[in-house]
Every structure is written in C-alpha cells, then in structure tokens.
C-alpha cells in the first residue's frame, strides 16, 4: 500500500531511518513522488525538538517541516522485537532505506545490511555517516562542523586573520544527503540490471572534500596550499575579490574579463564617469601570469566600491544584469522569500501542516514537465501507523 502520485518515483517506497545527517535525501525523493516512510521512535523523532520553531513552544519545528516534507510517519520502537520485525517486514517490500547510525549500530540490532540482505534482496540500503563504514576515522565522533573541516572546505572559507569557517546552517549534512540521493538513484538503476539491491556507503568527509574546486589540484600539481581569503575567491596564491558593500547590504561581483567593458558602460550610463581602462581590464585574466600590481587592483576595486556603495543590492542586481554584468545580491533569507524571480516561478507553496497549520514552504527545486514535483506537508508522529501496518498485514 503506497501513496499513488504521478511523480517520477511514484512506484517506489523509501524507508527513512536517519537521525540528523540524511533526512534531506528522502525529502527530495518524496518530492519526486516516492512513498517515503519516516520511522520515528514512539513519542516522535528527536529532531522534532530542533529549532527554529514556528511558535514560542518546543513543539513546532520548522526544521522538521522542511526536512520531512512529503513523508509518511510510522512510530516503531527498534528495541522491541515486534516492532523490529515490523521494520523487517517493511524492508521486504521497500526499495531504498536511508540510515545514519554509527557504523555497526544497526547491525547490533539485527538491522544491518548483512541481516537484511537475504530477507530483502531488492533493498538498496544507504548508510550515511561522517567518515564511512570502515577506516581509521570511521568511529570518530563528528558533527556538521566536523564535516566542513575534515573535508577541507573550511580552510578556504573565512577571513585570513581569524579561524577557518563553516556556513552557519548545517550544510555539510545537507550536501551529504544530496549526494546520498544521487547514490541511491544510481543504485536503483543498477537494480534494473542486476535485479539486486546493495549497500551504499556515503561519507560526509568525502562529500565535502569534493567541494574544494581546483584548490586540492593546485596542491598536487604545484605544491600550493590555497588559503581562505575573506570575501574573495580563494585561488592558488592569488585571491580575487567577490564581496562589495553597497548602500543596504552587499553584492557579489568578480572582475572577470567578460564583465569589464559592460561594467564600464553600465557605470557610464548611470553617470558615474569611470576612470579605469576597460579595454585593458577586459584583457586581464583573474589568474595566471602577468597580473596587474596590487596597487592597480586596489585602485580599480576602490572605484567599483564607490559606485556600488551609493546603490542598493537589488537595484544593482537589476540594473547591472541589464548591462549583462555578472553581479548578484548577497541575499538574506528574507530577500529569498521576497525574490521576484522565485515568486514569478511560484517557488513557494502553501501547505496545511498537520502540526503547524497553514505554512508557506519552499517548493520544487526543479521543474519536471511530465512528472511534476509534489509539495506536501510533513507528518505527525505515527500519523500513518494504521494504514502502513494494515498494508503490511495485507501482503
């Protein structure tokens, strides 16, 4: 028994046993139509207590609403034999399972891949952990922050005179979860070939190590350790500024050659009387040999800074892009909610959340013409116990 949708993955059932690191994997599959069953302990999943909260209570998690959108919920006590058996039975007909326990923890409850393989040979069992299932750090304690530093990304983020940084929301978890979603889809196609499920071992450290751009390549090839460069592109031994203040916030602009003549025209059209040699800057790459002196670059940046400082971020975005200059606003979360682009594309949708009532939620992260994304609310704890258990007995 599954929820029939016209989504691309509507024939598939997914079991979500994750704690904090992998909830987004199955949220995306749910948006594509999969029947995702979120398994929670009796009383509800611990991340239901995770903020931000909608109300002044501890029971209205917007985090839960975001990460568990479109899933069904069953409460099972995995320390109880009957409930463990129920989960085993669910696995027999499921297609994909996501879990994020420490390596070996699921096996200690008889729910490891080795335990389920014979019983559920079709099951794609995706384990998402900080470092992977085996190896010298596989038992290390970790968190989202550890993902950012262990993969190396933090060394490229932050002001040079202070500590390496992570982005301030738990993005390593979410990047890892999206990787796990890709892996599950590849394994699903492998099953068409082999007829079998398999074990997929996803590492947060490895996922974050893949975000280093070409910086690690520069170490291997040229022995250069790229360091964090503040609001600039961290690049080999030469950083290029990205962030500029403007009248009401910040904008992102990189002096790539393709933008320089356009920038000159734009500034001129706005009456700014630019002094820099546009033709020359249009011929100067931002990296490589024969770069301009630091003084020359500072002079150019100061001129651009003055122009930006007199104007607002969204106005700069609209007018700069009109001149084909690659400039972007440093959007706040509120700017994203107010974005004319997102709203023209109906990105936000209204759902009736069973716990929170009417909610405005981010919708489709991609638009598929034949099998559209479905935006549905997150479930209450055990909301679908009965229908899921009846479905089990019926099989």
């Amino acid at each position, binding site marked *: 028994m599954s929820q029939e949708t016209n989504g691309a*993955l509507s024939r598939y059932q997914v079991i979500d046993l994750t704690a904090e690191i992998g909830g987004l994997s199955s949220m995306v599959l749910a948006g594509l139509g999969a029947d995702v069953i979120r398994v929670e302990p009796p009383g509800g999943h611990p991340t239901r207590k995770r903020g*931000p909260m*909608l109300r002044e209570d501890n029971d209205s998690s917007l985090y839960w*609403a975001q*990460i568990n959108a479109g899933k069904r919920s069953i409460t099972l006590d995995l320390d109880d034999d009957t409930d463990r058996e129920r989960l085993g039975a669910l696995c027999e007909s499921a297609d994909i399972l996501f879990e994020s326990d420490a390596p070996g923890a699921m096996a200690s409850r008889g729910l490891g891949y080795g335990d389920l393989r014979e019983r559920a040979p079709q099951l794609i069992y995706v384990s998402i952990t900080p470092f*992977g299932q085996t190896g010298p750090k596989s038992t*290390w*304690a*970790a968190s*989202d*922050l550890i993902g950012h530093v*262990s*993969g190396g*990304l933090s060394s490229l*983020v*932050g*002001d040079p005179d202070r*500590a*390496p*940084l992570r982005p*301030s929301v*738990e*993005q390593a978890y979410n*990047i890892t979860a999206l990787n796990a979603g*890709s892996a599950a889809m*590849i394994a699903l196609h*492998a099953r068409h070939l082999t007829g079998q499920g398999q*074990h997929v*071992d996803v590492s*947060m450290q490895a996922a974050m*190590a893949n975000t*280093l*751009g070409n910086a690690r*390549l*520069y170490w*291997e090839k040229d022995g250069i350790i790229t*360091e964090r460069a503040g*609001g600039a*592109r*961290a690049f080999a031994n030469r950083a290029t500024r990205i*962030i500029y203040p403007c009248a009401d916030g910040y904008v*992102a602009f*990189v002096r790539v050659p393709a933008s320089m003549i356009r920038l000159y025209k734009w500034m001129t059209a706005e009456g700014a009387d630019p002094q820099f040699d546009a033709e020359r800057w249009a011929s100067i790459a931002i990296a490589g040999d024969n770069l301009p002196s630091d003084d020359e670059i500072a002079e150019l940046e100061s001129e651009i800074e003055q122009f930006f400082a007199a104007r607002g971020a969204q106005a700069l975005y609209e007018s700069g*892009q009109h001149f*084909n200059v690659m400039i*972007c*606003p440093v959007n706040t*979360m509120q*700017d994203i*909610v107010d974005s004319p682009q997102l709203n*023209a594309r109906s990105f936000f949708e209204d759902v009736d959340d069973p716990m929170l009532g009417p909610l*405005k*939620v*981010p919708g489709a*992260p*991609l638009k*598929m*013409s*034949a*099998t559209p994304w479905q935006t549905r609310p997150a479930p209450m704890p055990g909301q679908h116990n009965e229908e899921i258990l009846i479905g089990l007995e019926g099989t």
Partner: protein
Amino acid sequence: MSSSESPGARIFDGIRIADFAWVGVGPNATMQMAFHGAEVIRVESSHRPDTFRSGGPRPAGDGSLDASAYFAKFNRGKRSVAINLAHPRGGEVAKRLIATADIVTESFAPGFMERIGLSYEEVRKIKPDVIMCSMSMEGQTGPHAKFRGFGLTLQATAGVTGVTGWPDRPPVGTGVAYTDWVATHVGIIGILSALDHRRRTGEGQYIDLSQFEASTLVLDAGVIDAANTGRVAGPLGNRDFRYAPHGVYPCADDHTGGDRWVAIAVTNDDQWRCLALIMDRQDWLESDDLCDAAGRLAAQDALDEGITSWTSQQTVDEVEQMLQAVGVPAHRASNVRDAHEDPQLAHRNHWWTSDHPVIGEMSYESPPWRLSDTPPPMPRRSPLLGEDSEYVYRELCGYSQEEFQQLIVDGVVE
C-alpha cells in the same frame, strides 16, 4: 565505450547523453553517469570553450585548451566532439547527434538553445522520448531568467554567502563555486528519476533546473523560517544555535608549518564533561550553569577563551587524539594538503589517479559513495577537445568521409 564484464560499468549501458552543458554543475552530473557506462559526449567548440578548459592547474607554460586539470576533474569517462554551434551548419550536426541520444543536457543562458534551433520543442521532434535537462542560473522563466552568474556569485543569490562569515564583519561566502556541488545532485536525481520514468512509460520530458532554487535546499530551515516567522538567520562565525562550545580553535605550530586549527563541537552533556576532564577544568565540571547547552550557550565567550588558551599549547594531532579518545567531536581544519593526504580518504581510495597525454598523471575526486555490488571501473581520462569528432560525425551522425572532410573545411568541426 565498450561494455566490460563488471556490472558497475554497465548500469547505463546504451544510454547516450548529448552534453551541451559546461563549467561545473552539468558536467559533474553527467560524469557520474559516465562512470557507470553512459556514453557522454561533450559538445564543445574551440570558439567558445568550456571556461574550465582555460582554468588551472596546468603544466607550466602550456596554455592549450587540453592542459587544464580543472576541466579533467569534471569530464572523466566522457567523449568530446567539436561542433561550432555558431556556424550555420552547427545546429544540423547537433540535431543529428541528438537524434541518437537519450538525454540532452545544457546550461547556457536561457534562449541560446532556442536561437540555434535546439529548444525542447525542436529536440523532441527529432527524438520524441528524449529527456532534456536545462541547468541555468535561475531557471527558464521569470524576470531574472537571463541573468548571468556562476557558482562564485550564485551562492550570494542563493543565500549561502549571507550566512557565511563573522557576525561583526561583512559576510565572506565560501571562496569556492560552492553551489556547483549542490545543484549538480538535484540534477542527477532529477535526470535519473526521469530516466526511470521513461523506462517504465516510454515517455521523455523536459527538466528546468534553476541552480538558485536547487541550491536553497542546503539552507536547512533558513528559508522556511523566514517565510513563516520573518526571522532571518545571519552569520554566526563557527557558533551554532544549539550547541556550545562549538568552534575552530588555534593550535601550536607543528612540523607542517602554516597556521593550524582544530574544530571542537560539543553536541551533548557527556561530551562536555569529557572535554572539561581532558582540559582538567574542575571548575567547569563543577559548574551547575554549564551542565546543559543553554548554560553553555550563555557562557560561550568565556568557554571559547578557555579552550583557545588550552589548544594553543597543543599540536593539532594531540587535540584530535585526546578528544576523539573520549568521544568528543574534534578534527583539524584540514587544508588542501591535509585533505589530499588524509588517511581516512586514502582508506576509501577517494582520489582516483588518471593519466592524460597533456596533463600527465594526476588524482581527481571520486564519488563520496561506495556501491557494494556495482562499483564503477576506473574511468577513462578526460577527452581532448574534439578528440572523438570523427567517431561522432561519421558513426553517430552518419556523415560520409567526404562530408566530414567538407565540414572540417567549412569550419564546423572546431
């Protein structure tokens, strides 16, 4: 590419991708399918080369379009055909290729594919069950559809930059084309879902992926919070709204030189007690105020100061070992060299070596997942620009040798 005996090499056997996408997001997505047997053909032109072909690192003094290791990183396992799409006959060649393809990917500014006669409407006339995925900055529709950008700037639009920095300073963003590694997975999941749908129904479709929209998925509850409460998450440095202490702390110099930092994240009360024990801070252990997260969050400044003076006396190895031994999340802030030499990544054989006639031997990233039963074989090296032109024009597009030669003379194959 010939099929090999291992099932991991054959998952996408018989699937051909005409890959018009360039730079990061699209090429990274199709590379994952190339690893498992899809025939991915990069449609390229020396008149408008992929930005990464001009990137680095590269062998000293070699400015050629085949010398970039950055391009190689995203294009292993693929073929390359040279088609000058700006040439009047370029579109015709592209159409012949598309007629043989299952999937078409592109990441041009919206409108470009239409101008060269390759909109989805046109493409499906040639190949009715085609899956076409466009991966532009902000999607195909809307007032900002044609706005330009790349990963370094798009992360600002997508909200990542604004939450990355110190609260008392301007935001900094990530310094890398961060959203490239987010949107690419939404692309993979979407394309493979569409392929599964086609396998069952015979129906193709069009996917309009907005890198902006896809990238907001990593913002956790940031967007839904602002949309419903008006609260706006800002940069917290390395702090966390749930946990304390939570930071990246300076260590004593070690033999590797450079500045060394260690991240410590106390995510529960047991870890807090273990940290205080290791630091020999009896006063912290005995403090009632510090025994829960709320108390520690209120005392963060003092905690960070105390930890900093402790870590400054230790090497990063020592802090890692002492804290991990008692289960406290701690790890050096790895730099690119540390990542390259990391024993755990080495255990997973994460960096895959590839030899290349121009670049030489280099290692590149592998997927962060390991498939127990269908691991991919080592991929073929990334292609030289136009390396497979003869194969594509002659065998796939069906041009005779004479026609192919004429297209070369006419400047189409470049």
